């Protein structure tokens, strides 16, 4: 079949909301876009464990500690769902990790900001996870089946992340002056980087139109950002705190909050590797990978040894099934 027909059939399927599955024909550029987007998303989950992992040993109570561990563990899981989805497109896990480690693949710039106070765990949950959810919910309907399924699973789990974050801030907001100050300070530092998470303005986001035609994206960066600002502008009142934007104001005519200009120089600066923690984050990832090499090698050696040892040939877990099978004979 000529390529033209393939493209036409593909686009018609997408238009009819038929999901594309791994072995279906797809344009090379669709495949590449997905690999870039999904792997970038996977890397973000994995690198995103670092700023929060920073606080596990210093969480203020056992309850907070258990929650934080569960959240960081979820993020590892989310990274795995997404790496698996990307692998269905034909790229290997090792290649994705290599691209991250040499700096070729990006991850969300938000994780290049430091977490100097406990309140940052609250602000990350409320704002960073909140922005991520805003981005991710429409991705549950992405045209590529494995990506959409991974996102559904992630969104189900992500809601607790945001709620636990808001609860941390809520507790601080009713505390001492110092605690309230800590809460406001964290919001001040995370607000602008969070609304940058939606990416460049629509007029400087050249790939958006194609991604929307392919139904990878359902809303533009600015649409999602506006929705997020509208929601947060109300939620912050419950905390009795302020968002650090003097131009934030309800616009009756538009039915939305107006907000001040975003510092895109800062955004691109961090994307291009010059944020406060870029170097530290990447070094931590590479070190973890290198320090873990012996574990991976030992696991392979152990598996190979078991394979060649006939006494170990049957995995213990299959015994019930086999017992059932022999009863049926």
């Amino acid at each position: 079949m000529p390529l033209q027909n393939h493209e036409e059939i593909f686009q018609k399927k997408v238009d009819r909301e038929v999901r594309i599955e791994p072995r279906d024909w797809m344009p090379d550029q669709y495949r590449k876009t997905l690999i870039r987007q999904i792997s970038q998303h996977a890397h973000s989950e994995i690198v995103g464990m670092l700023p929060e992992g920073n606080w596990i040993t210093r969480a203020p109570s056992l309850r907070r500690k258990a929650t934080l561990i569960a959240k960081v563990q979820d993020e590892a899981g989310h990274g795995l769902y997404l790496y698996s989805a990307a692998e269905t497109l034909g790229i290997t896990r090792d290649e994705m990790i290599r691209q991250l480690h040499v700096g070729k693949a990006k991850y969300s710039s938000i994780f290049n900001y430091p977490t100097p106070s406990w309140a940052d765990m609250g602000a990350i949950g409320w704002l960073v996870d909140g922005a991520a959810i805003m981005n991710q919910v429409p991705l549950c309907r992405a045209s590529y089946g494995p990506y959409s399924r991974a996102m559904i699973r992630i969104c189900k789990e992500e809601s607790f992340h945001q709620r636990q974050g808001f609860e941390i801030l809520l507790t601080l907001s009713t505390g001492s002056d110092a605690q309230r100050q800590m809460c406001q300070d964290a919001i001040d530092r995370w607000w602008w980087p969070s609304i940058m998470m939606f990416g460049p303005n629509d007029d400087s986001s050249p790939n958006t139109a194609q991604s929307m035609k392919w139904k990878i994206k359902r809303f533009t960066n600015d649409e999602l950002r506006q929705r997020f600002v509208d929601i947060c502008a109300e939620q912050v009142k419950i905390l009795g705190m302020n968002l650090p934007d003097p131009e934030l104001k309800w616009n009756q005519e538009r039915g939305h909050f107006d907000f001040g200009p975003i510092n895109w120089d800062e955004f691109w600066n961090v994307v291009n590797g010059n944020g406060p923690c870029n170097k530290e984050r990447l070094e931590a990832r590479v070190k973890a990978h290198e320090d873990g090499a012996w574990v991976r090698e030992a696991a392979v050696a152990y598996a190979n040894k078991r394979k060649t040892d006939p006494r170990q040939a049957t995995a213990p877990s299959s015994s019930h099934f086999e017992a059932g099978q022999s009863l049926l004979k």
Partner: protein
Amino acid sequence: MNLLKKFYYGDLPEQKASANDPSLTGEGREGAAAWPLWEIFIRSKQGLDHKHVGSLHATDAQMAMENARDVYTRRQEGVSIWVVESRHVHASNPDDAESFYDPANDKVYRHPTFYDLPDELKHM
């Protein structure tokens, strides 16, 4: 380096699904590359079928099982797990779907609604 291999896990065309193909088993490569891919199936509760939930890398069935528990059942989503090495899965080809499923296309009489019966007829 060819990053985009034109075959996909869990859906390998038969001629490629050979245990000797090093690009599939990862043998001969170092580290995590040598960990094969496994497809994970989970029974969410007694009485329901196992359902495919995703995949992961592991050196052997036992590790695949433990990783599947950690990755896919953190919130009690399962009471039973199957793990199958991806290279053992054979899949139908979507390009052949039209002819492959053709035999069922003209047999509406397999459905109960095909039969024209009076409304008075009860319990059927």
